[in-house]
């Protein structure tokens, strides 16, 4: 659990940390789009170089990064194996019952593996260098145009930001409740599926009760502090477009063009 870094944030002052969240988010989407454009070794190599450069610039040690995404690699390998065994077409190399492996499915499997890996890497760079709240703000900025359609962008952003603010609190509570129940003889994380479901009850009920309490008291406190509705408020926290954003966009666009040129 401790090594699992997907979704975690590591504070820092690297050039990647300083970019505005909205542009990091959009670059992420853009990157994922180019991943699907890539279709040969050369184009994937270009993307791999870009992502490795991003990791180095973020100041996060490569070893830590790899250790952190390792648990997810098993998930990808599983998906890839499904793809390899169950896809059809190409020259069949091996088969047994409903399983068959062809040259084409192997190549496709390899590409899927690389795609998955690249997507996980870019999103991990995003979350490691961007505070969860900044991501929420990024989403809000990106969705702003929808306000004209009376879409409650600000309400959504405030909800998201409060939810994120309570993640550490609830995590702490979860650990304490688990420890308390362990001390009362509960054995989490082992035994049959039925046992595991059964032991989730003494964890989940207190956790939900706690969360509801937080929510109730928090809404009272917010009301007392003059909160009425979230669409008519000013905003203190703003992220401005940085020089690093402009540079990053130029690089990403260049990479997009290169990928387009080297693909089959």
């Amino acid at each position, binding site marked *: 659990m*401790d*090594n699992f*870094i997907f979704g975690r944030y*590591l504070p820092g002052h690297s050039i990647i940390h300083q970019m505005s969240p909205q542009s990091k988010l959009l670059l992420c989407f853009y990157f994922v789009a180019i991943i699907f454009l890539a279709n040969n070794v050369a184009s994937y190599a270009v993307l791999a170089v870009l992502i490795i450069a991003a990791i180095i610039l973020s100041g*996060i*040690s490569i070893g*830590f990064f790899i*250790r952190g995404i390792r648990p997810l690699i098993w998930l990808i390998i599983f998906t890839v194996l499904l793809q390899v065994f169950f896809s059809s077409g190409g020259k069949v190399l091996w088969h047994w019952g409903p399983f068959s492996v062809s040259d084409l499915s192997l190549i496709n499997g390899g590409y899927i593996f690389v795609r998955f890996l690249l997507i996980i890497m870019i999103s991990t760079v995003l979350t490691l260098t961007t505070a969860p709240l900044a991501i929420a703000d990024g989403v809000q900025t990106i969705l702003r145009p929808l306000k004209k359609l009376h879409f409650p962008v600000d309400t959504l952003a405030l909800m998201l930001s409060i939810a994120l603010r309570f993640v550490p609190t609830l995590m702490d*509570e979860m650990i*304490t*409740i688990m*420890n*308390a*129940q*362990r*001390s*009362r*003889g*509960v*054995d989490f*994380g*082992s035994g049959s599926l039925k046992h595991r479901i059964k032991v989730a*009850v*003494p964890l989940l*009920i*207190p956790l939900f*009760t*706690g969360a509801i309490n937080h929510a109730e008291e928090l809404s009272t406190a917010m009301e007392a502090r003059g909160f009425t509705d979230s669409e008519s408020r000013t905003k203190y926290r703003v992220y401005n477009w940085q020089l690093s954003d402009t540079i990053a966009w130029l690089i990403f666009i260049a990479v997009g063009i290169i990928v387009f040129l080297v693909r089959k």
Partner: protein
Amino acid sequence: MAGQIKFQNVNYVYHEDSPDAHQALKDINLTLTEGSFTAIIGHTGSGKSTLIQHINALIKPTSGEVSVGDYVITHKTTNKNLRPLRQKVGMVFQFPEKQIFEETVIKDIMFGPLNYGATEAEAKQAALNAMDLVGLPQQYQDQSPIDLSGGQMRRVAIAGVLAMNPSILILDEPTAGLDPRGHADIMALVARLHDEMGITIILVTHQMDDVVQYAEQVVVMSHGEITKQGSPQDIFADLKWVRQMQLTLPTSAEFAEQLKLAGFPLPSRPLTLTDLTNAILTELGANHG
């Protein structure tokens, strides 16, 4: 029986192999004898919680070993076969009412004994005894815990730990957030468990008045290390050190300091109201006599 608790060269590193790793415990050596009453003090983040969670192997040392009676816990200890240890070491966490999850009081208190293999009838008997101990009338047994007051819920939670019949009881600020009456009730219960039932008590607290009133020995922690260990008298003897560690003095000692500053001589450092009264009377008597 429980036997003694012993920490030998215990180190604990939190988030090992991650950029935000930090050492939460540094070279802890500590022996707590059977039946003793120990208070652990130190400001937030000093390592108190990490220390106590080693005693029932919720946390395993990164190096060194912890022994509880015959039970030895090292970094190699797995989560298997921990039950006998955890049954023997009762743990009351801060705001323990948060662990309550069953729909009735009695069921929640029976939860621990049932997990440790008691029969339904045994667990019920243990739960009723525990309710008795903490002073919850039996008519509460079929009530929903959410209908109880904060102080009563806390007692249900503590009963849930006592029902397992532990020989060591660890309490992390058991009176936090209670009103004065609730506070007094819980501390009286802890004292009774120690005095009458011989349970080894380890109390984590910020309340220095409770420390001097109940504890036989005090362990002071700071930055993951034990900085001082001794009787309450030893701990509060060196005023400069107490201030430097940002500890508060017991109310009587603080009052005595003010009294001295105002020019009333007091040769000793009284830690309780009785000590202070006697010290004042002695001084007045000596002057009058």
